[in-house]
């Protein structure tokens, strides 16, 4: 038990030092990087680590006879949570969302400290002591509170009432419901039944197994399989079309969606909504190939209202590319990210 708790304490201290160091630029702020696409789980894990750390820490302090009063433990943890949400999480969460997390955090802390009568008494003891003011120090503290509280609360409300111009929060549906069919260059494609005509084996037959065997490997770098180089002149079928799709991608799409298909292209910084990140497991990996075909063909202007057609700069690619070129680009996007398109069955 003790060993376990010391381990926890160690984690807690190390974590706090690291976080503090990163906030104050003592160690580079990129020491523990947030990996794209895994951020939520990473943050949850981190917070879990801190909870374990704090438990261990408080146990150790207790054992060493330097127990921190329950009162300060509760307040300390809540402050830690708020600081963590404000400075660690990136991209930053808006204040309203932080306030919600803060309230939930506060309720949790209260539940924890009022779990039994004894804990609750321990928690409110310091407050009662100040109210009763039986020692000189406590008396000074009481008067300080009496003066400071009205000033602070008045100041906060003044600040809150000053006219502000914070950016309105607008929530957008990234993957709106697709139509049943779409008409591109005069031909109607039923989304449920259409297939990518270039997902074919060297014999020219639709072959998902063949293409899935030749996509890049998942894992750091997402590199091509050693024997599946789309730049090999001898390629027939799938890989040949991947290369042709790549050529189109790097003449048209990378300006926004980026050289690594992560939505960080040359022009991406200027636009809002930001271009889709295909390497994120929440985008093309969740969708059917025909859905992408529809989105690419019709672009931002073809979105339903929940997708913000007025703000999206995604071109309706039917104005720039042929149907074949669009299918090839879709093929390339799945190859390069190493994801399988979802199928209808």
């Amino acid at each position, binding site marked *: 038990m003790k060993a376990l708790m010391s381990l926890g304490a160690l984690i807690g201290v190390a974590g706090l030092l690291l976080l503090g160091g990163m906030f104050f630029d003592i160690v580079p702020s990129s020491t523990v990087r947030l990996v794209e696409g895994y951020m939520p789980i990473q943050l949850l894990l981190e917070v879990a680590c801190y909870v374990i750390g704090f438990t261990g820490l408080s146990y150790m302090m207790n054992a060493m006879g330097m127990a921190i009063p329950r009162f300060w433990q509760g307040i300390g943890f809540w402050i830690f949570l708020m600081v963590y949400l404000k400075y660690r999480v990136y991209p930053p969460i808006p204040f309203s969302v932080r306030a919600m997390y803060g309230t939930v955090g506060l309720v949790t802390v209260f539940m924890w400290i009022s779990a039994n009568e004894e804990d609750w008494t321990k928690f409110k003891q310091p407050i009662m002591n100040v109210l009763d003011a039986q020692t000189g120090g406590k008396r000074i503290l009481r008067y300080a509170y*009496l003066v400071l509280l009205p000033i602070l609360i008045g*100041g906060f409300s003044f600040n809150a009432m000053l006219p502000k111009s914070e950016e309105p929060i607008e929530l957008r549906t990234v993957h709106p419901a697709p139509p049943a069919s779409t008409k591109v260059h005069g031909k109607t494609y039923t989304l449920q039944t259409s297939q990518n005509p270039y997902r074919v084996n060297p014999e020219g037959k639709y072959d998902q197994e063949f293409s899935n065997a030749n996509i890049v490997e998942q894992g750091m770098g997402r590199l*091509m399989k050693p024997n599946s180089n789309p730049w090999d002149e001898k390629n027939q079928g799938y890989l040949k079309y991947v290369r042709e799709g790549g050529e189109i991608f790097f003449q048209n799409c*990378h*300006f926004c969606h980026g050289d690594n298909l992560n939505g960080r292209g040359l022009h991406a910084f*200027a636009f809002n909504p930001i271009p889709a990140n295909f390497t994120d497991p929440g985008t093309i990996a969740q969708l059917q190939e025909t859905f992408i075909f529809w989105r690419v063909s019709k672009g931002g202007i073809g979105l339903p209202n929940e997708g913000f057609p007025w703000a999206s700069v995604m071109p309706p690619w039917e104005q720039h590319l042929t149907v074949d070129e669009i299918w090839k680009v879709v093929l390339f996007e799945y190859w390069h990210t190493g994801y399988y398109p979802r199928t209808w069955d």
Partner: protein
Amino acid sequence: MMDSITQKAGIIAAAAFGVVLVSTAGYSSVSAQGLPEGFKKGELAPEPSAEMIEAGKRVYFTKCVWCHGVDGAGDGPGADRLWPRPRNFNQGTFKIRHTASGELPLFDAKKPVPGQNDLFETVTHGLPGSAMPPWEGILSEEQRQQVLSFVTTQLVKDRKFTDKQSESQTILQLADLKPKPATDESKKRGAELIVEKKCVECHGMEGRGDGNAFNLKDDWGFSIQPANWHKCWNFRGSRQDPYNVSNIFRTFSTGVNGTPMPSFADNTTVDERWDIANFVNSLCERDTLGNPLPIDPLTDKPKINFVIPSDPVEGEIPTDLEHEAWKKAPKRYVAMGGQITHKPRNFVNRLDDIWVRSLYNDKHIVYLVEWDDRTKSVAEGKLPWAPTQVNIDIKEQDPKTGEEGSIAAHQNNYAVYNDAIGIETAVKWKELPAPIKPRYLFGTSEQYPMDIVKWEADGSLRAFKGTGWDKDFEERDNYEEAMKLLKAEWVNGRWYVMIQRPVGNKKDQDYDEDTFFEVGQYIPTVFFAWDGHNGDAGRKMAVSAFYYTFMNPPVPQETYIYPVIIAVGVVLLEGWVLTRRSNKKKGKTL
């Protein structure tokens, strides 16, 4: 004590070097007699292992080949629509280095020195302002080393990184050189030196890259532009740390191979180089308090605030930029990307940001728009289309290099049109339930149009109604008379344009065409910018995302009253709690 000794040593070394310099006047390259100050001889790195090279090939053909090409000649499928173009590796010419001018960059696959492994740093941090992204977090450190092993051994064809006969390494000892504090004195000396060393000839009097911008070519004959010192986040060598003066010091000391930017190591002392670097660094855009702008780590550009606040003024809105009201008005960075949604697409937009401030009074709102444009462009003669025409005959930048109409052939060679700026605001924005707006590109339809105010460098200020991306503009009756151009001036590579327009009201303005600017409301606003020397006209332009003009209301009286009432309430509450507590203790019950 130590400091003063090193300083003295530095002065002696500088003096000695000065003597050497005088005696070798006329030689521009590093002479055998001595090394430039701050440099030391280094060893060539050993050849990377065959496994590294083979593994690197796999990385290269997954990630790099698309722009840099199969033979590394910078001619991949993506190359033709990029400017600056992807690097041609074949000649071994690399821009950002710690090595003397003309030398190969540092690259050691086996024992890398952190921060000094030039090519590795380039791949890790990318080259901001170009299409080369930072690969950190995408490729592992090992993969980055592998791909560089492949590039340096297989794709650099004219030179050899390990050939002791032909290659040498004279390394800038950046880690040992302590930056000089950026005092006013140092910056002042730097300001004098950039004139003396003729930096301003290319970089311009204010360092906006507007000097000799038109005749510059790189080693391959492609057009190239001098850096704009006010946008340090676009410095190729900024290593994602744009306000770090050491990066400027390094670039200035080693030069940029393959470009007209020489190394100044031979004719400046280390001390002078720090002065220049401090001055150049001080020019980079900062906030009103003089602090560096916060940089968004996802884009490596300044963080964007989509609200453009407009402050109220009493009486006439001042036209003088030095006026207190303009100095106090918050200045917003508005990011601009190429318009690549509809034809003609603008892949190479030369305007990537504008700066906007705004003031208003009871009748008018004024936008002050400033942006860096290396060239003042005014079309010669009359333009061959009407100002309202949208679908004009402007060619999209063609993809094939070498052929007529390609970006490479066209760059700095376009027919010159007017520089222009457009401010587009939503008409009837209140009728649409938030967040719905008319489409950013000239509105959605006749029912939900956009109010477009466009200034052109020929001095015209016009008002249009946009009803769709491919619909010709409609002139707004008499509206132009209600607007006023308060300022339009191009100085040393920067436009200053001040446009005044009515805030409008429902009573005497046309509700179907004009935007009403209402205090305390978010008014959707989009900006367009055209660079005449880039052949920009019609839809070939730079465009921003949706921003919001927000006219700050004057602080209402209640703001001062309620907090006082609340504070008094808290005092009463305190009294009640204390009385209750003491009563309880005394055993009394209320």
